[in-house]
């Protein structure tokens, strides 16, 4: 099932099961969603439950918060994570804080969905990976969907939670066909081990997971067996799954599309160093985006983010220089 259809199905099922669930965002209704994630739901559930909003990101999240306070379960779509920067007051100062500041009196069963990442030549204001901004805020949950299974089950789970969730999607995955696994006990708080291996633990999320899997297949031909972990949740991170893998492999690589500095790579490798320093046979490796805005030119664009080829070659040379 296409990733976008899995998201659509999750929204459809949630709306079918619970009349309190409603959708809002720019173009989500009549138009069917900029990435067609909400296609057909406007016709099925009507304009009162699939609400087209003005271009007003801060107030899209703000009105969703007000709806959630009254007991509805809104799912707001921000057209891209880049535009969510206009909603950062509502995300950081409001949805992440209201429950705590009220001494637990306010419930915010609210999901804010958005795609992020590099698509193809959309330039710097449409290509960012901003997960670290959200993941650094206590009071939010931050979930990622790397395939149709985590898209469907992760989004349904997020809608059922009584806490606010930032739900990240990747622009390049919408049209990709993945098997939709029937995992009733899917738990986004648990990282997924997508592939087992004895030599290197590779942690990733969103689209990079697939580039990592490809690179790891090539590495097998060199006799290197990677264990690939997909972080479904970035806040909280399931460190236990990472630790138990690293205890086995004694090596950690983190792969992500955002600029290398101050990202998930820093967090994951710092924690591993704090907890498992004497287990490690090599310093952790981060393979990530460059410290630049994403350029328009295709050649430069591809240089700014990890590719399967570069993931492969960097892991290979790093492991050679550390005795593998």
């Amino acid at each position, binding site marked *: 099932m296409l990733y976008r259809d899995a998201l659509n199905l999750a929204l459809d099922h949630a709306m079918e099961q619970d009349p309190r669930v409603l959708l809002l965002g720019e173009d989500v209704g009549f138009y069917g969603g900029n990435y067609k994630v909400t296609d057909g739901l406007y016709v099925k559930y009507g304009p009162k439950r699939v609400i087209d909003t003005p271009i007003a990101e801060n107030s899209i999240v*703000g009105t969703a918060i007000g709806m959630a*306070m009254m007991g*509805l379960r809104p799912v707001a779509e921000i057209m891209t994570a880049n535009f969510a920067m206009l909603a950062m007051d509502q995300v950081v*100062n409001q949805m992440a804080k209201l*429950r705590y500041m*009220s001494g637990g*009196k306010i419930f915010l069963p609210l999901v804010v969905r958005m795609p992020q990442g590099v698509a193809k030549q959309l330039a710097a204001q449409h290509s960012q990976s901003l997960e670290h901004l959200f993941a650094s805020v206590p009071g939010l949950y931050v979930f990622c969907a790397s395939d149709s299974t985590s898209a469907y089950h992760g989004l349904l789970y997020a809608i059922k939670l009584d*806490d606010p969730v930032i739900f990240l999607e990747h622009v390049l995955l919408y049209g990709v066909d993945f098997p939709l696994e029937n995992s009733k006990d899917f738990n986004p708080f648990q990282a997924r081990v997508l592939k087992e291996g004895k030599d290197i633990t590779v942690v990733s999320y969103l689209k990079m997971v697939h580039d990592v899997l490809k690179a790891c297949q090539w590495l097998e031909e060199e006799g290197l067996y990677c264990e690939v972990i997909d972080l479904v949740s970035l806040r909280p991170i399931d460190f236990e799954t990472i630790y138990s893998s690293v205890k086995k492999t004694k090596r950690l690589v983190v792969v992500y599309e955002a600029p290398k500095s101050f990202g998930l790579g820093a967090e994951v490798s710092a924690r591993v160093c704090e907890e498992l320093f004497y287990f490690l046979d090599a310093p952790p490796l981060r393979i990530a985006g460059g410290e630049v805005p994403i350029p328009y030119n295709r050649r430069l664009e591809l240089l700014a983010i990890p590719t399967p080829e570069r993931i492969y070659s960097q892991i290979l040379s790093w492991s050679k220089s550390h005795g593998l």
Partner: protein
Amino acid sequence: MSQTLAEKFYYLMKLGRELEVRCKEEYLKGNISGFLHLAIGEEAVHVGAVIGFGKGDLFCPYREHVLALARGIEAKYIMAELFGKVTGVSKGKGGSMHLYEPKMDFYGGNAIVAAHLPHAVGAAYARKLMGEKAGVLAIFGDGATNSGTFFESINMASLWEVPVLFLCENNQYAIGTHISRSSALKDLYLKARDYMPSVQVDGMDVFVVYEAVVKAKEYIEEYGKPYFIEALTYRFEGHSMADKGDYRSPREIESFKRRDPIKLLVDKSLQMGWLTEEQIRLMDQKIEKVIEEAVEFALNSPEPSEGELYTDLYCGVCSDVIP
């Protein structure tokens, strides 16, 4: 009717005034800390609006002690919150700017200017969708009307036809900046007039505020659409305890103090025979007692335990969820 109202207004406005005067003392003693914004001078707007609005959800800015009192939250729970005690309305985690009591449809206290306006719009959308009529009262200052969020909110409220009463308490100053230096329009109600019915009223006369809000409430209930009121008022104190308010001339402050809303209410009520000196004396006695008890309660209440640091952040699946 006017007798009962006058009594209610006087009690709440005077209680609010005395509570805040006491807050100031307790702040200087070190029992209250952080930011403390007093509404002294603006009580007619707060009490007239909350009583006039009656049933419905309240979304307030950070200057909300009197609004909370008028909604029925007891002084002792407000005082305990200001003291940072676990018995406070927000368990000591919110403080002066974050008083919440959803059971009384009181949704804070927000410390980001205008950020609660879209909450009010969303809440009104939800109430209307659920078939409830009461609507939502959103109160904010003059400074908020210059923000993008304000314009986003009045646009969405009007577009979606949701029952919100936008009440702007125009005290003329955004901290130290006079509206003439921050707003291109001097009359703030004009900013909403193309979106919804919008009026300007004297915010120092509680009866005027009350009547305007009752009329607005009837409108939003009948039509399920928004309404805007600008209430002209003045704060007698600085923006917060950190601000002396001395960017305003003593003459200007005096001229507004001559129209002290409590004094106006007393003069009018005595003249009309709605209140007697004796009634006022008895209410003052009661207020003194309530405030003493509130401070006593706050002082004797425990601090939150260390274990409270990480509670109330997430609840997981804690209410009635999808089957």
